[in-house]
C-alpha cells in the first residue's frame, strides 16, 4: 500500500480530536478502524492532509446500559460490540448484524461508529440503527448535538457528521417485551458485502404482529425503512404465508441500484424475498 503523504495525530480526548480536526483544515479526516479509510488511501481516492486517529479515545469506547437504552462508543470495534453481553441481551439485532460484517480481521479493527459515519449504502449497520430508532451524538467545535438515525444518513457516503465533527456515541432504545429481531443478509460470498440486507424487529402478541420495524441495506443511497411492509404487517398473523404477502411491497420507496451483483429488477425481487425471510425469522414464523 502506498498512499499519498499525510500527517497523523492521535488525540486522547474528544475535545483534542475536534481541535486537531479544526487545526488540520479542510483536508483533515478522522480515522478509527481504518477499514474503509485505508482502502481509499491505498487507491488514492482520498488524499487527506491530516489523519486524526480516534481509535484510542476512552470516551468513545465501550458499552453502557442506561436502563431503557444502551449507549455504545463510536470507536468500539465490531468484535467488541458483538461479544458484549449488554448488546447481546438488549440489542441482539445489532450483535447479529455485526457478526455478518466482513471477516474476523476486519471485525477486530473496524468500528461501529466508523461504519455509520462512512455512510456506505452497502454497510450492514446503518439499517439496524435506522430500524431501532437510534440517536447519534456528534461533537464539533460548537459543542455536542444529537441526531436521530432517520436524519443521520444523507446520501451516498454522506452523513450528518460535518467535516470538522466527530461521531462520539450511539444510543439505542431497548425493545420491550414481545419483540423478536433478525438480520437477514443476502451476499454472494460469506465475507462479501450485502447485495440486500434486512434488519427486522417485530412485536408479536397472541399470534398477531402488533408492531414492526424494518430497515433495508443497499436498497437506496441511504438505508431506508420498508414502511409499507411495516404497516401491512400490523394486525397480520405471524405466519409465513401472511408475512410473505405483506412483504410484497418491500421495494416501495426504495431506489435500487444496478451493479455486478444485482440489477434493479433482481434487487427489488430480493428485497421482497429477504424481507419475508427476515420478518418470519424475527416473528418466529
Amino acid at each position, binding site marked *: 500500500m502506498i498512499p499519498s503523504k499525510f500527517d497523523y495525530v492521535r488525540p486522547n480526548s474528544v475535545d483534542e480530536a475536534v481541535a486537531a480536526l479544526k487545526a488540520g483544515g479542510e483536508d483533515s479526516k478522522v480515522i478509527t478502524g481504518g477499514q474503509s479509510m485505508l482502502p481509499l488511501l491505498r487507491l488514492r481516492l482520498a488524499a487527506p492532509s491530516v489523519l486524526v486517529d480516534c481509535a484510542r479515545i476512552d470516551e468513545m469506547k465501550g458499552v453502557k446500559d442506561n436502563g431503557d437504552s444502551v449507549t455504545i462508543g463510536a470507536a468500539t470495534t465490531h468484535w467488541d460490540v458483538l461479544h458484549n453481553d449488554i448488546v447481546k441481551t438488549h440489542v441482539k439485532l445489532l450483535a447479529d448484524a455485526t457478526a455478518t460484517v466482513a471477516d474476523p480481521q476486519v471485525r477486530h479493527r473496524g468500528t461501529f461508529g466508523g461504519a455509520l459515519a462512512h455512510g456506505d449504502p452497502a454497510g450492514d449497520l446503518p439499517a439496524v440503527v435506522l430500524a431501532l430508532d437510534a440517536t447519534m451524538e456528534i461533537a464539533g467545535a460548537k459543542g455536542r448535538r444529537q441526531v436521530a438515525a432517520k436524519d443521520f444518513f444523507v446520501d451516498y457516503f454522506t452523513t450528518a457528521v460535518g467535516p470538522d465533527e466527530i461521531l462520539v456515541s450511539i444510543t439505542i432504545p431497548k425493545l420491550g417485551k414481545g419483540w423478536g429481531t433478525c438480520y437477514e443478509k443476502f451476499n454472494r*460470498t460469506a465475507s*462479501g458485502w450485502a*447485495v440486500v440486507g434486512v434488519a427486522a424487529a417485530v412485536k408479536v402478541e397472541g399470534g398477531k404482529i402488533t408492531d414492526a420495524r424494518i430497515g433495508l441495506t443497499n436498497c437506496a443511497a441511504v438505508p431506508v425503512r420498508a414502511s409499507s411492509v411495516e404497516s401491512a404487517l400490523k394486525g397480520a398473523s405471524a405466519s409465513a404465508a401472511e408475512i410473505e404477502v405483506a412483504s410484497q411491497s418491500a421495494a416501495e420507496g426504495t431506489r435500487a441500484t444496478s451493479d455486478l451483483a444485482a440489477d434493479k429488477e433482481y434487487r427489488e*425481487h430480493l428485497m421482497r*424475498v429477504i424481507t419475508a425471510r427476515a420478518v418470519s425469522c424475527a416473528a418466529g414464523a
Partner: protein
Amino acid sequence: MTELADHVAAIGRPLKRKEDARLLTGKTQWTDNIQLAGALHMAILRSPMGHAKITKLDVSGALKYPGVEAAYGADELGDLNGSVPCVWPVTDDMVAPDFPALAKGEVRHMGDCVALVLAGTAAQAADALEGIVVEYSALPAVIDMDDAIKDGSPLVHSDKGTNKCYTYKLQPQGDGAYEAAKAKADVVVKRRFVNQRLIPAFMEPRAVVASPMGTSGELTIWSATQVPHVLRVLLALVTGVSENKLRVVAPDVGGGFGGKLQCYREEILCVALANKLGRPIKWTETRSEDMMATHHGRDQLQDIEIAATKDGKLLGLKVDLIANMGAYLQIITPGIPLLGMFMYPAIYKMDAYDFSCIGVFTNTTPTDAYRGAGRPESTYAIERIMDELANELGMEPMELRKKNWIKHEEFPYTTVAGLTYDSGNYEAATDKAMALFKYDELRKEQVARRASGDKVQLGIGISTFTEMCGLAPSRTLGALKYVAGGWEHCTIRVLPTGKVELVTGTSPHGQGHETAWSQIASDTLGIPVDDIEVIHGDTRTSPYGMDTYGSRSLAVGGQAILRAGEKVVEKARLIAAHQLECSANDLEFDNGVFRVKGDPSKEKAIQAVAFEAFSAHDLPDGLEPTLQAESTVDPQDFSYPHGTHLCAMEVDTETGKSTIRSYVCVDDIGIQINPLIVEGQVHGGLAQGIAQALYEGAVYDSDGQLLTASLADYLVPGAPDLPSFVTDHTVTPSTTNPLGTKGVGEAGAIASTPAVINAIVDALRPYGVNDVPMPALPMTVWRTLNAARQGGK
C-alpha cells in the same frame, strides 16, 4: 559417524511438510523482502483505457518529484524496450504482433504499460507517476470474441489487418470422418458453452529485484516466478544480457497457478534498466496492477456437438473453439487451447473426432496458462455435454458414462484424439465415489423434493475426468511447435557427514517439493528424510531445469530424482565392494546399508561410504572421488490421472443461490509419494474449480474497462464458502514412469467445475433449464430459471 536408525519407507507416508514452518510464519525470503543498498524502485503508469492512441506523453514532469532518478516512456527507453516473447508459434502463419514492454504510441488493454519512474523509494516512485502528462485519443475497442472475428470489427492491431491469430485443425480420422459418424447417429446434441475468463489471483503479488552487482559481475534477478530456468533463457534472448552472466533466483514464491509461468514486461524492464544504470532495480506490484496486468486464464467459446446411437453409444465428437488471446501473445498464449485439444474425448470411446480452434485478439489482458491450462476447458465441455446427451436420451448420466468409458482391462488405450492413456480404472474410482457420496439415497431425496415442490431443489453433478500431465517427451513438444523441451534434471550429492543435497530443476511455489522429493531420495538412498536438503529455484545452484507447471514436477522431475539416486547407489556400491573386498554383485543394499551376501556381519553404511569417497584414501582404481550423481530424464510419455467427482447442490429457486451440500471425489493419481500433500493439492484445486463454477469471472465493459478489478468485485471464495470435502483415492500405477506416479497439481481444478454446474442444471432440470452460465452467481441462476419458466409456458 552418526548412529543409523532403521530406515522406514518414506514413500507413501503423510509426512508434514518441512517447508511449512518458514512459509507460514513468513520467516523466509520473499522477493519483496529483498533490500539492496542503492536500489531504485520502479513504478509503472498503466493505461486506464481499453484501446487508445497515445497522443501525448511527457515524462519530464516526474523528474521534478523528490527522489526521482529517471523516467521513461517508449521513446526515452529506445532499444531497452524489449518485447515479450511467445515461444509457441502454433501454426506457420500465426499472427504474432509485437508486444513491447512499454507501449509504443498505442495502448491495447487496460493495464498496458505506458511509462515508468525510478526513484529512491517505492512511495516516491508512486507519487511521481502523478507528474507524467499523458493524453489518449480513444480508439474503438473490441471485447467480444464473436464480434472480433466479424468483418469490419475494430482491429486490436490495425497493421495486421485481422483479429484472427490462428486457425488450428485436428482431424485424426481425416476430413469427413466426423460427418460420416454423425450420419449414423440417432441423437446429436449441440451446445455452446462459455468458459469464462479467470484471474489467477495468487496470494503473493508479482515482485522483481534485478541487481547488476553479483560477485562475478553477473546480473542477478530475483523474481516471484514459477520458471527461473525458462526465464533466464528468455531474458537473455530479449535483453541481450549474456546467459552465463544472468542468474535467476525464485526465492520462496507465494502461489502461481500458471500466472507466474511467464516472462513479464516488468521482468524485462527491471533487467534492462539494472543493466544499463548499474544499480539494482526493484518492483512489486499492487493488487490492482495484478488484476489487470498478470495474465488471465481460460476465456473460450466452445461449440461442441456429440453424436450417439439411441442406446447411448458414442459415435463422434466435434469441437469448434474460439479462444481469446487478449491483446497480445505471451509465453504460451496460443498453445493453451491446444493443451485441451487432445482431451475433449476424455475417457470415452468413439469413432471420430474433429477439432478446430480460432485464436482471437481482443482489447483485454493477454491470457495464458492458469491451473489446468486447456484441460479444465475441455473437461468442462465434455462432461457438460455428456449430461445433456444423457438427458436427451433419457438415460441416467452415470450409466451413459459407464457405457462409453475405457474399461480397465483395455489399457493402454489409444484414444480417438491419438493419445495413448497409460493406465486407469474408472470403474473402481466411480464405485468408491458413489458409495461415499450415497448416490442412490441422494437421488431418492431429489425425487421427493421435486414432488413436494420444495423451494430449495437438490441437484447431483458428475464429472468423470482424466487429464494429461507432465508435458513431455521433448520430441512430442517439438512436433507441436513448442520451442522448449520437457525433460527434468536432478543432482544428488552425499556430503562427507552423510547429509544429502538434492538439487532439482523443478521450482516449487507452494507444492511441498522439499518434503516429497526428500521422501523419494530417502527411499532410494536409505538416508532419513530429515537429512536431505532440497535445493531449488536458483540457476546458479541448479543450472538445469524446466521448472514447475502442468503437474509435471513429480511426474517428470521425480524420475530424475530416482535415477540420480540410483546412480549414487551404483557408485557407492563400487566403493563399498572395494573396501569390503568383494565383488559389487556380492553386495545387497537395504535401508542404506551394503552387506555382503551370505556374510551379513560385513557391512558398510552409505554414509560411511560418502566419507570414504570424500577422503579418497582407498578408492577403487580409476574411480573419481566424491559421492554424487546427476540425471536428466526425458520421460517416455504423459501420464493420465483420473477420478470421479460428485457434487450435491442445493439451489434456492427464490433467490438463485447455489450452496454445495456435499462434495466427494476419488482421484487416481497412481502411486502417492505423500498422501497429505496430495490431499492438499486436491483441496486447493477443488476450491479453484468450484470458484470458476460459482464465483469467479473477469468482466469487461464494451470499452475494455475491467469491471472486476479488485478482490471486492472479483469473488475469490474463502473457506466459509466451501463445503468440507470428502476426498479419497484408488491407486492404478502409471506405466510410463518407474515411480508409477501421475500428477495431481491440477486434478481438482480440472474435475470440479463441470461437477458443480451439472449439479445446478440437474437441480433445475424440471423447470426446463438445460444450461447455466458461469459463474453461476445468484442473479445469473435466477435469470436462467425465469427464462426457462417463461419458455415453458
